[in-house]
């Protein structure tokens, strides 16, 4: 504990107790008559001592953690509290100070901060590593899909038999649909969602120049499905478009293709319509491989598929529950 004379020039210490002397390493005769700032040193925070000075000149009580120095030069943290003492007329005559050595607490706080910083750094590094790994894997997936696509195209080019060639082309279009999904998946910022409208635009962008006799109309609302559903959905849409262009609107024949994507009453609804010959009169038709996988994938998506007459042509509607 200390008492300073608030009225004397430069506010000297007029009383110190033994605990203060023990804490600071001075003897009483060395400190009485001096202003306490002799305890401050090179690493004392200027802001903390300014807070103290402001309080004193305003005549207020102040509480501040101050880095002080003992007589032998070793630093210690001083939790200092000072309060003014007034005389009968209200003038401040003394400041009473109480000092507690909180070096241990400060050290613990510093260690904790350092640990937190270290932890944050580790977490940041882990995130950076994860992102780099994700990019690497993404890059490999894309390159491998490109390789698979090129292999299929190269083999198609060398295949003269129409049936085999047709099968290879259908397979190429399926692989390309999956490739389009992958190209888009990591382009967006949200890796969890997949933008169906953009996919349809990409898909149609690939086929439309080769079929400029077909008038294509796209009615695309922005819907984002779960990324895990992206590949099966892309395959179904690809089959439906492929089917419309191969059977509904065979090459060289003008016609209309319309694709509509929207959200309606708790479902994502995807419609593919053509104005070709439509379903066979009996309604029964031989399910080819394309139709088989379309049904299987729709099942996987918990979607319902409806084939109906588009009067004229064929309208296929797929409804996927939003909260499937």
């Amino acid at each position, binding site marked *: 504990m200390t008492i300073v004379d608030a009225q004397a020039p430069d506010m000297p210490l007029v009383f110190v107790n033994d605990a203060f002397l023990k804490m600071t390493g001075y003897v009483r005769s060395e400190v009485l008559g001096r202003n306490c700032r002799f305890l401050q040193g090179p690493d004392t925070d200027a802001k903390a001592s300014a807070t103290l000075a402001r309080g004193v000149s305003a005549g207020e009580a102040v509480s501040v953690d101050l880095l002080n120095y003992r007589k032998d030069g070793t630093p210690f943290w001083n939790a200092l509290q000072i309060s003014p003492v007034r005389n009968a007329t209200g003038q401040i005559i003394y400041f009473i100070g109480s000092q507690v050595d909180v070096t241990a607490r400060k050290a613990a706080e510093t260690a904790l901060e350092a640990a937190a910083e270290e932890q944050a750094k580790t977490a940041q590094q882990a995130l950076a590593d994860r992102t780099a790994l994700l990019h690497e894997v993404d*890059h490999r997936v894309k*390159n491998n899909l490109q390789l698979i696509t*090129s292999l299929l195209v190269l083999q198609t080019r060398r295949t003269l038999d129409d049936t085999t060639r047709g099968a290879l082309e259908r397979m190429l279009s399926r692989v390309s649909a999956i490739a389009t999904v992958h*190209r888009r998946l990591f382009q967006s910022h949200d890796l969890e969602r997949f933008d169906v409208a953009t996919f349809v635009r990409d898909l149609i962008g*690939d086929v439309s120049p080769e079929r400029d006799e077909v008038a294509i109309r796209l009615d695309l609302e922005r819907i984002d499905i779960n990324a895990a559903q992206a590949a099966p959905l892309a395959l179904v849409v690809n089959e439906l478009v492929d089917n419309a262009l191969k059977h509904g609107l065979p090459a060289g024949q003008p016609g209309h293709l319309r694709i509509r994507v929207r959200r309606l009453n708790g479902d994502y609804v995807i419609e593919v319509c053509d104005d070709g010959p439509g379903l066979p009169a009996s309604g029964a038709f031989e399910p080819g491989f394309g139709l088989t996988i379309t049904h299987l994938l729709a099942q996987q998506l918990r979607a319902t598929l409806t084939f109906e007459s588009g009067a004229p042509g064929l309208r296929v509607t797929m409804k996927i529950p939003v909260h499937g």
Partner: protein
Amino acid sequence: MDRPLATPNPRPLTVLIVEDEVLLAVELGFLVREAGCLDVGHALDSKAAVQLADRLQPDIVLVDVHLSDGPTGVDAVRKILEDRKAVALFMTANVKRLPEDLAGACGVIGKPYSDGSIRQALTFLAHCLQAGTASGPPPPGLNLSETFAARWGVDQLARAG
């Protein structure tokens, strides 16, 4: 007026393919020829790319970012474009890693691409190079650099994403 003349039979454009996946390069060669261009050479690494560009003076250079000597495609494009009039087009699975200015390339096509998109892109580029201006918005899948979009008069808003 310095408007380029619409010649009935413009000289076919020459294309250099820089790609370390041989099968992709071979297939690209087919697409280049189908687009009415000449497939003049293939390079697997950046050194060969610069040398071939020097020797063949191609009109168009198709460049992958990852080549057999590492991620050297970007530097190869800078070197190739330094003192030649060629136009470079990146084809990469790492579109986001390309520098902002695309190293002076006219655009980028993301992998995996489809045959159709490459054919359309080449047709589009051929028109731009021969007429000095675009025939319309770039085909889907082809992202033009700001510089080239402006040069060929492509409305920025009409550019496909």
